[in-house]
């Protein structure tokens, strides 16, 4: 891997700070607010997803017109387009079940920890466990290497 631009990590940190402050302001860091939304009691969260997607959409369209390559990496500006398969629906359903049960999602959980909501450590521990279990199960189902899958 080539040497990174000295401003790469500071910029990522600045983006994360903005992202996390926004999650705090939006109420996403509070499981109670998310559960009230999912139960139709306060639909304000539609404006969080809508507002975030709108700003991202404008940025993803505008920047490729302003420059050919990103200044800190030299990479071309692309879009987030992932291939569709049935895992998108199955995984989305599992994710939705967890979100509906707990009222918390990954980004909001990180920001919620910053708010001082220490019980969210239960959710974060669960997320790491779930991601690990999913990787183990898929390694078992479809080994990505020819070596034995018994060793971790």
């Amino acid at each position, binding site marked *: 891997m080539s040497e990174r631009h000295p401003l790469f990590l500071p*910029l990522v940190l600045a983006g994360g700070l903005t992202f996390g402050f926004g999650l705090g302001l939006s109420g996403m860091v509070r499981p109670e607010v998310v559960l009230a939304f999912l139960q139709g009691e306060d639909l304000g969260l539609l404006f969080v997803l809508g507002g975030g997607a709108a700003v991202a959409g404008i940025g993803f369209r505008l920047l490729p017109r302003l420059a050919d390559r990103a200044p800190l990496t030299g990479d071309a500006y692309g879009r987030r387009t992932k291939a569709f398969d049935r895992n998108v629906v199955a995984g989305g359903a599992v994710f939705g079940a967890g979100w509906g049960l707990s009222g918390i999602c990954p980004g909001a959980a990180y920001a919620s920890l910053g708010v001082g909501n220490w019980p969210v450590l239960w959710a974060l521990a669960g997320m790491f466990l779930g991601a690990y279990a999913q990787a183990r199960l898929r390694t078992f189902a479809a080994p990505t290497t020819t070596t034995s899958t018994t060793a971790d």
Partner: protein
Amino acid sequence: MALDVAALFPNGVLPYAAGGLLVGLGVVVIYAGTGIIAGASTFLESTLSYVSGNARLNRPKYLASRDWRVVFTLGIVGGGALYALTLGGGAWTTEVQPWRLLAGGVLVGAGTRLGKGCTSGHGVCGVGSASRTSIVGVVTFLAVAVGVAALVSALGVTP
């Protein structure tokens, strides 16, 4: 038939919209400088590569991005803290029961990795990219979440 729109937004829409705009801005700031479209949940897998030799967790794209994803996540934690110290009025803890957070977290962690994205990856970055895959993902997880939240509530579980 009069639909009371205000009743659907008891806390108005301003903090929600402003928060959403900042979430989008955070994504665009990173994109503008690096070309990277950062979702929140890949951090789970890429960070696990520090402690696990599992082949799926050690794919090159995770090894190459795991350090900046830690920085991104620390930024999100810091942003939440900045909010609490300014507009948020101090620290705050949830009343939602630990078993719901833990069990829900397990499903969220497994589901986001199987389904290729979470609320920020699919919901903000993917929808912002007009990706059909992400739109299907968002509709799926929203519909299931509404159903599960209603079921849990109907079973009398509070909070």
